[in-house]
């Protein structure tokens, strides 16, 4: 393991990887990467590499788990053993089970669950490489995989984290900043509806800092949202071109 850096923000106000406090990591998104899934997407956000696959909607077995008035959304967030520096056991840990639930609850408000009662949709999120903020990147990529599967949605969900390191509010934390920093606040957001679907906080922030952090996170989500839209459209750009 690399040793703890002394300071996370240098005298010029830049972060360890040279970013400004309100700057996102470089993001690359691709939609429809898996042939065998009904919908899929892949994201690279800084050093994060995450793959999402969606199956369904389909009949739910065992049947007693089905809900008579809506679709059941099932999420599995999983980190590959090689996704972190120290090998991670492939068995789902407490943290992964919790994140699966948190991600599911961040995605559910975006989906028209009531359109297909008694069915289930599975979302599989595989973290291939992790460097902080994987829950947010997972939500971003999973919402794209859902849209790719043709599941009716109110909006795409974009997510991004903010935090406080060395007394400064910064956008899109990476792993070191998350671990050494004073606070971490992941947020998921539906820009068209102006609705927050996930808001967590770890650490301490004053009310003023909190408000500043939330508005910074929303700005970040809006930037990510535009990239999501472009990525989803990119799959059909050829469709549009030949049409004219």
């Amino acid at each position: 393991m690399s040793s703890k850096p002394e300071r996370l923000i240098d005298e010029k106000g830049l972060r360890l990887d040279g970013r400004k406090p309100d700057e996102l990591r470089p993001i690359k998104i691709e939609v429809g990467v898996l042939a065998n899934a009904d919908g899929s997407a892949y994201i690279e956000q800084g050093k994060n590499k995450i793959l999402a696959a969606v199956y369904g909607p389909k009949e739910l077995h065992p049947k007693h788990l089905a809900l008579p008035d809506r679709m059941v959304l099932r999420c599995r967030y999983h980190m590959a053993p090689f996704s972190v520096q120290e090998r991670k056991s492939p068995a789902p840990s407490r943290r992964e089970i919790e994140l699966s639930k948190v991600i599911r609850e961040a995605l559910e408000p975006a989906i028209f669950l009531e359109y297909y009662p008694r069915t289930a949709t599975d979302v599989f999120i595989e973290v291939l490489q992790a460097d902080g903020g994987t829950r947010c990147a997972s939500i971003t990529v999973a919402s794209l995989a859902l849209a790719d599967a043709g599941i009716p949605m109110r909006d795409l969900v974009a997510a991004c984290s903010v935090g406080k390191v060395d007394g400064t509010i910064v956008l899109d934390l990476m792993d070191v900043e998350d671990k050494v920093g004073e606070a971490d606040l992941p947020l998921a957001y539906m820009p068209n509806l102006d609705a927050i679907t996930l808001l967590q906080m770890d650490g301490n922030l004053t009310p003023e800092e909190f408000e500043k952090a939330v508005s910074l996170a929303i700005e970040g989500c809006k930037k990510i949202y535009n990239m999501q839209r472009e990525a989803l459209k990119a799959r059909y750009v050829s469709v549009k071109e030949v049409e004219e």
Partner: protein
Amino acid sequence: MPKFFERRQLVVPGDLIAEGDYIAGENVYRENNRIYAARIGLVEYQDNRVNVVALRAFYVPKVGDTVIGTVVEVGFSGWAVDINAPYLAMLRVSEVIKRPFKPQKDELTKILDVGDLILAKIIAYDRTQPPFLGVDEPGMGKITKGQIVKITPTKIPRVIGKKGSMISMLKQETGCHIILGQNGVILVTGKSPEDEELAIMAIRKIEEESHVSGLTDRIFQMIKMEKERRRLT
């Protein structure tokens, strides 16, 4: 009443398509007088109605649709059929045999068994019930010959073409009998396997190029060339 997208422009879920006195059609939803897209697709306006023609969707059963399905389960008084939809469809014995059904005498597996393909019509379906199938019409029931092609259900209208232009051309040129299931499953029956292969090739091409205009003519040319090539070899 502003519209934010042109006709046939690409939208993704959450895009605000129009504002004002519009009617929400397919694959869109309405919230406080605003119409948003619910699926990725192309915008269509129809008088006051806003629709999105979905590029990605799955088959949702509709009463009156003709579908092709696979029997996956034999029960006491009917079969469960996979019709490529979120729900398994049910086919009751009473729909198949036109006399009182006697469980002691009639064996269901002799009529239809797991793995059999059937051509059927959806006779009942709503949010509270699974889709029920019927096989009343001529030609319906167990499929005994031909080949199956599966395509995206949203592209079935393209295989039919404007007023059936595409499908009638296909039938005429390949000499095959083609039955379209609304659930994206197509049955092709021809005089020889070669004829069937030709028809399947054409259907695959339609699926790939469904959004390019002048498709019927190009498919016609392709079939002609392929026939020519086969005659020579």
